[in-house]
């Protein structure tokens, strides 16, 4: 065991971490920092220092992705970098997939707590790799490279970079493996492993890694990308110290994080209202008839209740108390992933700007209850697609914050939620012709980075342009996706009608696509997003949730003949009741209202359809301006029948001029009719209470719903008590589930 630690003044990293944690608890300030003395004494120097480090990180990211990177990283920037304190707290971050800034923080702390300093040792030039969600990651597909930064013989920080892989060698090809139901299905695990020294990745690691995944070339390119970026950051930090001095650096990193903490508190006081906020989201897991493995054959519905307390001092407390249990499925979410999700959303709704670091993390009290989907505490579960829980769950935080923003008058900042970055059509196959004959391709399109954003209280939501985990969302180019998924070329992309959540301001809309299997054999395909439930916590102030996903594909088609004869083929599924697939092709057409499917085999000329998600709406649809409804019709966002039923707008289309006109008088009448319908078809709260309670006491609930209530009641006394009290059920009431 080392006698002298590699931390500051001979301390071990563990001692430094313990001291840091003690100071936060004792003083409620980062590292006990009372005064931002550097900032106060010479603000220009302080800001210049921050900007120089921030610039170095952004530059490292932009340069590294051009040095070497897989298409997914290069095309839409699925990477980010951050600089950390010796204890693992982020000081400065690059742009990119910022959800990982705090996950890497957890990984560094894992290594410190596990005393890596003694074994395997932490030395200048060492390289560590992590993708284990149980110690600081979202899912195994996100791979982190972390290097220590030394000044003389002291460790003064860490540089970390993360990229999203196309494939990590899991049970099936792809990046969010629906078929993974335990850790052993998740693909290759690197649990904070040392993989190099003297700035060089060890040969034995690279040989092993290349043989562990289906896309070895892209794995290697991304390893080089992350290391290149980290080395650039290290150089920049050492240069910074040469210019500013080590004493300045040491004080600066503490003050920068404390300033980040204070910025959050100040922003909360500036934008919100103290009080208690609540929302609830859900995700369906129809695994009973879908899963292959006997242990996984169970329908699950996950309860994702959130409570946000805005305190008088500007602090936030976020709790998922009442969350239901984890399961034998890929959606389990480690604590690190929950913290990453919370952090990345706060950077978007409250603390956007340059001074983004773990200070914001320290300003928030968090409760991810143990043994729930939000913190299972069991490393042997699958953590392959925790996004299945994380993405819908955090719509609740956005909605809660939006209530505060609204009341404070900042209506332009309101966002009740966002679309699920799901329906990532996934899978893979082997080329049987062309220059890549015999090689594997993996289907992992990152078009999913372009989902619909929720409406604000003053405008419509953003169409096809938002991903909760990457503030720089970009759906990329078809041509780039076809570079690495050439076995399934696109036949179409076009706007899908009726995806946007209805409202006075509608949610963002989205599009659909059709792709065809070609040039391949041994093709497997799967996908998943919400299908039986609406995504997230729905609309706000009378707005509706956006449309759900569903599944559509066709096997054994006559596409070969259609192509040969140059006949019409389906370009989408604008009206699922009257589908183009059924009209234009022959074959075995499968439609399912659930979106999630386990992998199926496909052959050349088989078709798959996918649709991206809209965003939730805001306000009563009857208040939507007629000119906006007209534009929706012109742009194909909504169809005539739904505009009539929901917005009460009577519109006519002139086939000759191809123009829409609104009949204002008829619309006025129709809107009055809808108000009357509302009166006729609604009930009092007392009637509603009886109506709903019967569903529980007369055992009319679906098995998945009962299981959800049963788990939440068992896992949280508080949530269970409120549930039972609301429905006036006895304290010992139990839901009978298998």
């Amino acid at each position, binding site marked *: 065991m080392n006698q002298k630690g590699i931390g500051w003044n001979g301390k071990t990293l563990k001692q430094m971490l313990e001291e840091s944690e003690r100071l936060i608890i004792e003083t409620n300030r980062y590292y006990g920092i009372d005064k931002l003395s550097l900032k106060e004494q010479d603000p220009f120097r302080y800001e210049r220092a921050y900007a120089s480090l921030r610039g170095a990180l952004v530059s490292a990211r932009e340069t590294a992705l051009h040095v070497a990177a897989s298409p997914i990283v290069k095309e839409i920037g699925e990477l980010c970098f951050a600089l950390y304190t010796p204890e693992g707290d982020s000081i400065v971050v690059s742009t990119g997939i910022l959800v990982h800034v705090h996950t890497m923080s957890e990984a560094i702390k894992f290594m410190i707590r596990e005393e890596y300093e003694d074994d395997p040792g932490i030395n200048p030039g060492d390289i560590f790799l992590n993708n284990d969600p149980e110690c600081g990651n979202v899912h195994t597909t996100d791979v982190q490279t972390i290097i220590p930064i030394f000044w003389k013989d002291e460790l003064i920080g860490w540089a970390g970079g993360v990229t999203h892989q196309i494939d990590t060698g899991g049970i099936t090809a792809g990046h969010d493996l629906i078929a993974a139901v335990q850790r052993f299905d998740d693909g290759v695990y690197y649990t904070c492993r040392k993989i190099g020294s003297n700035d060089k990745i060890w040969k034995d690691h690279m040989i092993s890694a290349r043989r562990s995944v289906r896309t070895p070339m892209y794995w290697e390119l991304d390893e080089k990308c992350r290391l290149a970026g980290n080395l650039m950051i290290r150089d920049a930090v050492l240069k910074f110290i040469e210019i500013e001095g080590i004493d300045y650096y040491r004080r600066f990193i503490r003050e920068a994080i404390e300033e980040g903490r204070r910025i959050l508190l100040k922003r909360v*006081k500036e934008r919100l*209202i*103290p*009080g*208690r*906020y*609540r929302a*609830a989201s*859900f995700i369906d897991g129809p695994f009973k008839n879908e899963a292959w493995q006997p242990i996984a054959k169970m329908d699950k*519905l996950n309860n994702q209740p959130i409570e946000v307390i805005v305190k*008088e001092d500007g602090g936030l407390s976020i709790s998922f108390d009442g969350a239901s249990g984890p399961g034998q499925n890929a959606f389990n979410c480690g604590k690190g992933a929950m913290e990453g999700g919370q952090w990345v959303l706060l950077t978007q709704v409250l603390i956007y700007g340059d001074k983004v670091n773990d200070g914001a993390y320290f300003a928030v009290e968090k409760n991810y209850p143990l043994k729930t989907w939000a913190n299972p505490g069991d490393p042997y579960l699958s953590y392959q697609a925790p996004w299945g829980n994380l993405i819908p769950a955090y719509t609740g935080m956005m*909605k809660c914050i939006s209530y*505060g923003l609204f*009341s*404070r*008058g900042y*209506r*332009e*900042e309101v966002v009740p939620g966002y679309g699920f970055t799901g329906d990532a059509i996934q899978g893979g196959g082997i080329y049987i012709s062309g220059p890549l004959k015999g090689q594997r391709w993996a289907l992992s399109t990152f078009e999913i980075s372009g989902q619909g954003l929720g409406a604000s209280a*003053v*405008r419509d939501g953003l169409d096809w342009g938002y991903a909760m985990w990457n503030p720089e969302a970009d759906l990329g180019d078809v041509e780039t996706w076809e570079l690495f998924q050439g076995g399934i070329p696109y036949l179409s992309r076009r706007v899908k009608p*009726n*995806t946007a959540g209805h409202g*006075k*301001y509608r949610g963002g809309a989205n599009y659909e696509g059709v792709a065809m299997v070609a040039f391949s054999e041994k093709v497997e395909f799967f996908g998943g997003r919400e299908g039986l*439930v*609406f995504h997230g916590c*729905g609309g*706000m*102030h*009378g707005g*509706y*949730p956006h*449309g759900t996903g*569903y599944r559509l594909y066709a096997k054994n088609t006559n596409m070969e003949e259609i192509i040969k004869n140059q006949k019409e083929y389906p370009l989408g599924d604008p*009206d*699922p*009741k009257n589908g183009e697939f059924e009209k234009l092709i022959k074959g075995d057409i499968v439609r399912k*209202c*659930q979106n999630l499917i386990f992998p199926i085999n496909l052959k050349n000329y088989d078709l798959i359809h996918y649709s991206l998600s809209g965003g939730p709406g805001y306000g*009563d649809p009857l*208040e939507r301006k007629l000119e906006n409804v007209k534009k929706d019709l012109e742009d194909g966002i909504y169809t005539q029948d*739904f505009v009539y*039923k*929901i917005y009460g707008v009577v519109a006519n289309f002139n086939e000759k001029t191809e123009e829409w006109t609104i009949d204002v008088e008829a619309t006025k009448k129709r809107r009055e009719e809808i108000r009357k319908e*509302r009166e006729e078809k*609604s*009930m009092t*709260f007392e009637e*509603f209470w009886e*109506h*709903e309670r019967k*569903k529980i006491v007369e055992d009319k*609930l*679906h098995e*998945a*719903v009962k299981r*959800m209530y049963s788990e939440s009641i068992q896992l949280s006394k508080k949530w269970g008590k409120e*549930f039972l009290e609301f*429905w006036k059920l006895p304290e010992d009431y139990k839901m009978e589930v298998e």
Partner: protein
Amino acid sequence: MVQHDKKTLVRMLEGDLSWDELKLIISGRKDPNRFDVILEILQEKVPWKEKILLPLHEHLYVVNKNGKRIVKCDCGHEFGDYHQNWKTKCRIRVRDTQEDINELYPHCMGSDPEWMELREYYCPECFTLLDTESVPPGYPVIFNFLPDIDAFYEKWLGRKAPDRE
């Protein structure tokens, strides 16, 4: 200090700002007097006299009436004590059949009513749709927001709430 003139904010509330105008407000620094200006605009807009303490919703406000803080709709309907969930004073429509859900969503693009229903909360007087809830059958009504009005005025704004002055 950033300030947006009242006319601009009125236009924003009406949804009349162009994207170029709105983007400046979104991406710029925030105007610290926004709460007071919005309150003034809303007070002028509502057809009743009670002083608004806090805008709670597009159509609902916390006001003081006869010494009690209540939730009031802009149509004049009163929902009672703001500590109670105003949704429990609404008229409610529950869409818990596939037919009812498919009035709003195309086939397969709405929820399965066995897994999730859609609730609509209307003002009992003007029948404005005040909220929707997409929750599994049997889920308790969610109480979304309970503001701490006195802490807000006294601790954050440094003055008493208008009804406590």
